[in-house]
């Protein structure tokens, strides 16, 4: 009901609104992704790498001090402990294995903050495949350390100079590259966005998160399932990962946190569900921020990873069907929540992730509610922003 149907739609959202030039690539992927990724061989290789290379399973950690402060049972799913520092690598491992099975020789990807770019460059180094990362010219300036990491990992970083020169334009450039290289190239998209089958494929690779939570929670708490799963949403991949196995179980509440930027109505925001309308972005029918004429508008958030004008079609459906509760959090509240988590638990989160933690100030939970929050990434990459913000 909440997952993708055989035509690639989540309710009325999703599909593959792509030019004919992309059809062979997307068809090839659609016809093969399940066959390959569900095969025993693939699963064995995938899980072996997740274990030995990524460091899975990541801990599910009961956050005692945060739980005391907010009077509820808060568990942290520690994706920040993944190799490369975020959940992104679960997807890139899956996709590069798939690309190999499809006989692809070259990898391309887009990146905003650089996290997905680093995770892609990492697996390309691991597999010895050439790698081109598209990144908005403005983001290249904002995220210098990640640009350096990608280069050190052997990737070529190409500046997207078109449009607004940020994540959506980097995605356009990656898609154009794929149009121009239809045979030997696989496009490792970084979130649950893009034409079908990308949203479903990425969600499946990230679903390892909810599978682990299910198992770990049974071992660690008196409840067999959470009352809530909670995550920040940029495109929506870490959220899809922690929701996945709970989607159809409506006893589990789903909370999605979007970046309000300077405030939902300030004109500088990335709260897509509040500000967006149905439309097409990057080949998918979903909610997106656009003007009356249907031109896609530029979002704003202090965190580059949430600075995307759309959300994945799964999340648009979860919003429209009211399966998920959507909350938006400002830059300031996210920064304070990041500070608080650092001080209370000794964990410095990525600023994307910090948005999810700001929910506890806005929304009350019952004392015995089990709330599992996806700690999607660590804050090393954001130290400059933290330093500037808090005058450190």
């Amino acid at each position: 009901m909440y997952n993708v149907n055989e035509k690639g739609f989540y309710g009325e959202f999703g599909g593959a609104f792509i030019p004919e030039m992309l059809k062979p690539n997307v068809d090839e992927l659609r016809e093969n992704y399940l066959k390959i990724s569900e095969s025993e061989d693939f699963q064995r290789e995938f899980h072996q790498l997740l274990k030995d290379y990524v460091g899975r399973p990541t801990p599910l950690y009961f956050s005692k001090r945060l739980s005391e402060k907010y009077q509820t049972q808060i568990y942290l799913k520690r994706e920040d402990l993944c190799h490369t520092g975020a959940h992104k690598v679960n997807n890139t491992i899956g996709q590069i294995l798939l690309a190999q099975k499809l006989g692809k020789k070259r990898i391309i990807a887009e990146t905003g903050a650089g996290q997905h770019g680093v995770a892609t460059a990492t697996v390309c180094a691991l597999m010895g495949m050439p790698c081109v990362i598209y990144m908005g010219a403005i983001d290249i300036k904002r995220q210098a350390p990640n640009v350096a990491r990608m280069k050190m990992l052997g990737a070529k970083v190409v500046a997207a100079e078109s449009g607004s020169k940020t994540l959506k334009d980097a995605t356009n450039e990656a898609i154009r590259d794929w149009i121009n290289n239809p045979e030997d190239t696989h496009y490792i998209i970084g979130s649950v966005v893009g034409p079908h089958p990308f949203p479903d494929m990425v969600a499946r690779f990230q679903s390892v998160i909810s599978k682990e939570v299910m198992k770990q929670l049974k071992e660690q708490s008196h409840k067999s399932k959470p009352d809530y799963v909670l995550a920040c949403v940029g495109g929506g991949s870490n959220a899809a990962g922690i929701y996945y196995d709970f989607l159809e179980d409506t006893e589990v509440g789903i909370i999605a946190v979007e970046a309000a930027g300077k405030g939902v109505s300030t004109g500088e925001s990335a709260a897509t569900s509040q500000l967006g309308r149905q439309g097409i972005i990057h080949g998918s029918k979903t909610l997106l921020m656009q003007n009356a004429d249907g031109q896609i508008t530029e979002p704003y958030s202090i965190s580059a990873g949430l600075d995307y004008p759309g959300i994945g079609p799964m999340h648009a459906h979860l919003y429209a069907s009211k399966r998920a509760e959507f909350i938006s959090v400002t830059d300031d509240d996210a920064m304070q929540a990041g500070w608080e988590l650092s001080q209370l638990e000794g964990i410095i989160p990525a600023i994307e992730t910090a948005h999810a933690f700001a929910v506890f100030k806005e929304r009350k939970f019952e004392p015995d509610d089990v709330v599992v929050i996806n700690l999607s990434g660590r804050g090393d990459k954001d130290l400059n922003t933290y330093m500037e913000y808090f005058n450190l």
Partner: protein
Amino acid sequence: MQLIMFKKLCLYNRNMNRITKKLKAPHKLLSIYFTAGYPKLEDTVEILKRLQDSDVDMVEIGLPYSDPLADGPTIQQSSTQALKNGISTKKLFAQIQDIRQHIEIPLIVMGYFNPMLQYGVSQFCKDVSDIGIDGLIMPDLPYDYWLEHHKDDYEHNNLKHIQLITPQTSKERILEIDKQSEDAFIYMVSSSSTTGSQIGFAQEQLDYFERIGSYNLQTPQIVGFGIKDNETFSQATSHAKGAIIGSAFIKMLSKRGLNGIDGFIKNIRQP
């Protein structure tokens, strides 16, 4: 009964789509793509007039989009500039509202699906048809989706849906598209690429032109992407009915402005 038949026939002739009529011409067709609202916002109508005066057979009016996935740098930049100049769907429709008082050649609007979706697909079809537009090219409106959801909107408004094919499109699918293309043309993308990417045609592309030619499709084909001069125009039309020039025309406009149009077109026709 006879009278009704006769009336219907008259109506049919009068209403025969301009694209359909033009495709019956004996010569190879030259079609030009340009971005509405570029170089200057109010250039749209003047460009159309000059193209007709230079004996262009058909024109694609590009409706600019913020995220034109299928386009290379030249058309992207012209779109970004046109949007900065203030073009929008409504603005374009206002500019060309009376266009049929001056322009007789077939006119096609080429754009992306999202602005059309926001305008309302049915309303969009009705309004362009009232203006006198003959067909639409929407690269990211997939063929099967169009068949299922929007074919009726097009037909009610006597609009042709122009479908793209590429070197990777299977023969099966091409034959299916051929069956459905009723009196329009098939837009044959010369290679798997975005607009404006090629330097000239390689043997591979010439083979592809020949291959499609050998299918003897009932629907005429017009080749686009990579045509920029007399040589590439002749190559593209060796098997096809015509060719479309986009990026090369925009580049010329950026350099020489509207006064360069006539010379540019003459050069394509004869070197």
